[in-house]
């Protein structure tokens, strides 16, 4: 690794103009990328990692940003090029792929046109040559029937396939450097595995360098030769990936690594374990506290039997029903007080629909739901209102789930007052109490949601859910949108609250590593059905169903010794639960592996 670097970034400082003042968001960042090397920039939101990549490509709005320093591509300073010269670099010598494959392709042009555009623009190819080369690229990124898909539009591709199209487009001109800005963050975990494999393979074939921007330490460990850790605009540490992981010097690096949920780290643990919290300034670590052992109880607080939820699919001239989405198919489970049952699975597996059906936010098609001794499906609307006192929900997006025109005090007190649980004075008392309980202060009551960070808002959402003293909380991807260190804190908070208030959690998540950390029992969902359910240790240490295994093997583990691993995942897509009219779901058979650990066998 003594070759001259392809890209050499020197003292890069990028400032944005905010209210007429220049505010630096990236400060003095320097790094090199050598030929064939993968460098990861890792950091949480606001660390400046994406701004760094956009600065290299000079894609930031000119009048609102200022870039200083040097960006040397093969010795030529990109920052000194004219805009026209820079256009010959973009998409040609340096290409980029982005986080959102769903929105990164132009919806009104065929994917073929969008890829061949690069070739006609930079390589001066004729339309026919560009078409042939585009099809070759589509085959290279393993898109089945590439030739026939040339004339299709982006909406005809799944998320994973669109990211392949993006990669084909980025690599069409054989760039020396590929900048991948969170390319797998929006994808399901098995698809993420496929895309990571693909990037590794193509990198070998083409011999290009990769600048990989991510927040996911697991992905970093798998893909990067060297790593730069960014924190609030500064590159706080850089070095070989191995060194960063094992001998990280900066307290923030250590904090970040300790907060990362690590699949397989719970071996030998009987109960959920809190995350250790490292102070980002001093580097002092608090020892993780295990959750209190669950009390033995007989009767479950929530019992779901043979739950089925289907949505009609309509089409044709008179919008006749032509099929159904079998979102939830014959799902049964129970949940005890003080227990966390996790529902895990990928997009479209029905985990969220299950959560909503249980609360009757969506009307289930059939099945039986017993909550605290009441038959939920038979409740009238006023009884349903009362029922919702004992079961509350926390959503994924802490930004859109709070009304921006309501102070957080009003937001938390509203359900309490609506349900007539007390007068205004009592509501205020309750709100103050809840805010303290979720780690905020009572004095924040009069502030509005925009004044809080994402993690704080999720705490507010939790406080609001608690205002009715519920027994069960449905947490639908409640920590998924949060940064690693915030996620660890909010998970710890949930465990604290469970201990103090004896709450039962239905924890819906796609994140296997978080699930392993916080749950007592786990149910794995696939195409609307539970394929495996059991105590956490049994499911994670002795997974039986092929899908559970596939899911677990796809999770990137933050362990640099796994660098370069290939999963050899099949290039398949997630299947759809849309069925034709009159479809009869097959009768399923189950096997009990050990006490409470049940697996679908046929």
């Amino acid at each position: 690794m003594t070759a001259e670097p392809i890209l050499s970034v020197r003292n890069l400082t990028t400032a944005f103009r905010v209210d007429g003042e220049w505010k630096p968001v990236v400060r003095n960042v320097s790094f090199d990328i050598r030929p064939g090397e993968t460098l990861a920039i890792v950091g949480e939101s606001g660390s400046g990692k994406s701004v760094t990549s956009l600065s290299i490509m000079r894609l930031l709005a000119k009048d609102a940003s200022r870039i200083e320093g040097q960006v040397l591509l093969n010795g030529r300073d990109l920052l000194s090029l004219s805009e026209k010269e820079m256009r010959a670099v973009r998409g040609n010598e340096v290409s980029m792929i982005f986080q959102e494959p769903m929105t990164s392709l132009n919806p009104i042009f065929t994917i073929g046109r969008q890829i061949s555009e690069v070739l006609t623009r930079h390589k001066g190819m004729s339309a026919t040559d560009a078409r042939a080369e585009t099809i070759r690229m589509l085959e290279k990124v393993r898109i089945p029937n590439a030739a026939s898909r040339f004339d299709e539009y982006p909406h005809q591709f799944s998320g994973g396939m669109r990211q392949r199209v993006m990669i084909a487009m980025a690599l069409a001109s054989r760039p020396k450097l590929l900048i991948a800005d969170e390319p797998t963050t929006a994808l399901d975990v098995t698809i993420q595995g496929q895309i990571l494999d693909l990037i590794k393979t193509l990198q070998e074939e083409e011999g290009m360098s990769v600048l990989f921007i991510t927040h996911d330490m697991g992905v970093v460990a798998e893909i990067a030769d060297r790593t730069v850790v960014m924190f609030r605009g500064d590159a706080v540490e850089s070095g070989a990936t191995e060194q960063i992981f094992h001998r990280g010097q900066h307290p923030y690096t250590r904090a970040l690594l300790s907060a990362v949920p690590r699949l397989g780290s719970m071996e030998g643990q009987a109960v959920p374990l809190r995350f250790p919290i490292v102070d980002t300034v001093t580097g002092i670590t608090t020892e993780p506290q295990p959750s209190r052992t669950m009390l033995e109880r007989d009767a479950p607080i929530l019992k779901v039997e043979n739950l089925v939820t289907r949505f009609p699919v309509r089409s044709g001239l008179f919008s006749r029903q032509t099929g159904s989405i079998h979102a939830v198919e014959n799902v049964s489970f129970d949940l005890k007080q003080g227990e966390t049952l996790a529902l895990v699975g990928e997009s479209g597996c029905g985990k969220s629909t299950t959560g909503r059906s249980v609360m009757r936010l969506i009307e289930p098609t059939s099945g039986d739901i017993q909550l605290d001794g009441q038959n939920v499906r038979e409740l009238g609307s006023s009884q349903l209102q009362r029922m919702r006192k004992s079961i509350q929900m926390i959503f994924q997006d802490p930004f859109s789930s709070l009304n921006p025109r309501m102070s957080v005090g009003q937001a938390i007190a509203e359900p309490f007052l609506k349900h007539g649980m007390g007068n205004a004075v009592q509501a205020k008392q309750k709100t103050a109490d809840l805010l303290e309980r979720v780690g905020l202060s009572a004095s924040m009551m009069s502030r509005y949601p925009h004044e809080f960070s994402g993690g704080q808002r999720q705490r507010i959402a939790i406080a609001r859910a608690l205002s009715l003293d519920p027994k069960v909380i449905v947490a639908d991807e409640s920590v998924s949108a949060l940064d690693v260190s915030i996620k660890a804190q909010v998970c710890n908070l949930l465990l604290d609250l469970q201990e103090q208030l004896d709450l039962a959690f239905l924890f819906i998540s796609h994140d296997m590593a978080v699930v392993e950390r916080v749950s007592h029992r786990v149910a794995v969902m696939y195409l609307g059905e539970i394929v495996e359910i059991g105590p956490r240790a049994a499911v994670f240490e002795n997974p039986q169903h092929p899908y559970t295994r596939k899911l677990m093997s796809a999770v990137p583990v933050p362990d640099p010794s796994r660098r370069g691993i290939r999963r050899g995942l099949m290039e398949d897509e997630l299947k759809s639960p849309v069925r034709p009219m009159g479809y009869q779901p097959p009768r399923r058979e189950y096997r009990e592996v050990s006490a409470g650990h049940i697996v679908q066998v046929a």
Partner: protein
Amino acid sequence: MVQMPVYIGKRLLVAIPTLLIISIFVFSLQKLLPGDPIMAMAGEERDPAVLEQLREKYHLNDPIPLQYVRWLGGVAQGDLGVSLRTNQPVLELIGQKLPVTIQLAIMSMFFAVIIGVPMGILAAVKKNTILDYIANLVALSGLSVPNFWLGIMLILLISVNLGWLPASGFESIFVDPVRSIQTMLMPSFVLGTGLAATLMRHTRSAMLGVLSSDYIRTARAKGLSPREVILSHSFRNALLPVVTLSALLFGELLAGAVLTEQIFTVPGFGKLIVDAVFNRDYAVVQGVVMCTAVGFIVMNLAADILYVLLNPRLRATL
């Protein structure tokens, strides 16, 4: 694409109840209005027997639902009745005025589009610069300057002082196309600038939305030139809402532009309907309103079809 005729058929089916509701509304509104058309027709004649005879003749003594059904039956066969005032068939009256109105509408839209759309694009691309402010200022004046004032000023400047264009007078496009277009230039410019302002605002906001989207960032990261990024990748996406709006504005133009027609003495729908209302000429009002409603529905349908054609995602769901 095979499904397009089915889609159009479906939309036409939906249009039928809409038209029926409009027809009931139009018909009953007439009956609720004060004033007696027979009195207006009879003029000085006050002999109750004569009035009664007239009422009989025009079936005005029948129960209202029967009058409605009789009227609707006629409409369905293209018989919109006879003007109570001039005894001309309403269809014939509409037939005379409709080409004028359509010509005015097309020419106005032409001005609206060639002024509004490029200005909208420019304002979006040069957001928060002096060009954007100027475009917004022009749009604001276009919206707030009354048509009649602008019309009079144009006549003063261009016809009276400069003598470039005729101040008024109308010539059918089938008789003398050049003179017809000349006489229509000013009225359509006046109408067009007002619409251009609306189009500019919508084009600007649609372009701003598109320009900040992820796929435009992708297009720039590919090394495309600003021209390709703006005109090919951005504009075609921004066009979608603009097309819908244009079709609706066109539909509005079909209803006639009373003031502008009055100033430039253009014999279009606007003048016809105003005269008919003042004369309580039931049949004409009903006919013109129905005709306008049909025009509006057709333009709406055209907008929807264009929208589908421009948007591959909708094309697939047909």
